[in-house]
């Protein structure tokens, strides 16, 4: 879990396109459908803080003999659990439906993630978080699962150089070079030596992507640049953990005319 202690939003990558700014600059953007997300659950450090107070758990606590009544255990941390993208009830397990029912839903959610917080969250289960929550956010960190590349060689996977195509080289054009040392100083292949193997399908966070535009009506957010994963892949968007001070120094691409003119007179960076 990252240290960012703000509530983010869940989304889905719709695809990439480009938009033109007023001054004619062309900005590559990723369009992300962000929200609406339902708050499914709120986690509190102590049981007393929980909005429902000392709720008694009706489960039988794993014991075979009848139901027990016990005070709700504290979660031990603050968090908000969000659910995104409806999942038909027929595809949900009963425990899933039970969990979403507490947030006032008849169906499940396909993508459920928790956001850890420093303080007790003000959100309540059943509320909706929309992309409007990011209105004041200028940059976001986006977490997603990268595209799968299957079994990939060292060139694609680690950026190794290729070997010469000629000058006597035969067969070994895309193979890795040496793996280690020989003879008395050799300890075999060094631990952690980068080799071919499975590549992709990793959780990756791209930090500090500029928010170009927010379309609250359609729950869309336009981000400058690329985000991990394939189209329709799920994403977690958070306010960036990077230094926002940098933003003032480099006003980026979404600048209104006045600001653009000020920039132009100063000359391009």
């Amino acid at each position, binding site marked *: 879990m990252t240290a960012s202690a703000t509530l983010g939003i869940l989304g889905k990558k*719709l*695809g990439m*396109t*480009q*938009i*033109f700014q*007023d001054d*004619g600059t*062309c900005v590559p953007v990723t*369009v992300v*459908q962000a929200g609406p997300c339902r708050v499914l659950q709120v986690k509190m450090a102590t049981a007393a803080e929980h909005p429902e107070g000392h709720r008694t758990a009706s489960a039988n606590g794993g014991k075979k003999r009848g139901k027990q009544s016990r005070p709700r255990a504290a979660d031990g941390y603050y968090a908000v659990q969000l659910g995104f993208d409806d999942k038909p009830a027929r595809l949900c397990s009963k425990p899933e439906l039970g969990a979403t029912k507490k947030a006032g839903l008849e169906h499940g959610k396909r993508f459920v993630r928790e956001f850890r917080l420093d303080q007790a969250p003000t959100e309540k289960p059943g509320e909706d978080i929309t992309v409007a929550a990011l209105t004041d956010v200028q940059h976001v960190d986006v977490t997603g699962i990268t595209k799968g590349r299957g079994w990939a060689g060292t060139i694609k996977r680690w950026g190794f150089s290729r070997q010469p195509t000629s000058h006597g080289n035969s067969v070994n054009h895309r193979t890795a070079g040496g793996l280690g040392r020989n003879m008395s100083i050799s300890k075999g292949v060094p631990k952690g030596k980068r080799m071919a193997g499975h590549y992709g399908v990793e959780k990756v966070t791209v930090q500090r992507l500029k928010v170009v535009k927010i379309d609250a009506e359609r729950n*869309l957010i336009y981000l400058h640049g690329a985000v991990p994963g394939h189209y329709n892949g799920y994403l977690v968007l958070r306010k960036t953990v990077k230094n926002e001070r940098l933003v003032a120094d480099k006003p980026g691409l979404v600048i209104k005319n006045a600001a653009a*003119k000020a920039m*132009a007179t100063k000359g391009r960076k």
Partner: protein
Amino acid sequence: MNILHQLELEHMKAEIPDFGIGDTVDVHYLIKEGDKERVQLFSGTVIALAGSGIRRNATVRRLVAGEGVERTFPLHSPRVANITVRDRGIVRRAKLYYLRDREGKATRLKPNLGKLQYPRSGKGSGLSKAAATDAPAAE
């Protein structure tokens, strides 16, 4: 409709002038000089059209002092103010890269003497559907 396609339509120009590969065109391009904006003309032959939707662009080739110069214009950019057609040409390829190897008279293209129907807005013309149907009426 694909949501992305729809979003692109919203940001696209309602209409872009009708021209095709092989046409000789004037591209009116806005350039900034200090605080002033002025129009710069770039006249040449359209040798390639690429991309679709808002990403559609045209490559225009001209000769400047005997040296070939090519510029690619994003058709939906606000900087491209207008494109006017000087001459229609008949060509049999979608990309006229062979013109790069030619000089002088060999770069001439067959003029269109009314044999082809214009406008040729249609599939892949980069025009929105509405604009494509409106265009013939406007001509």
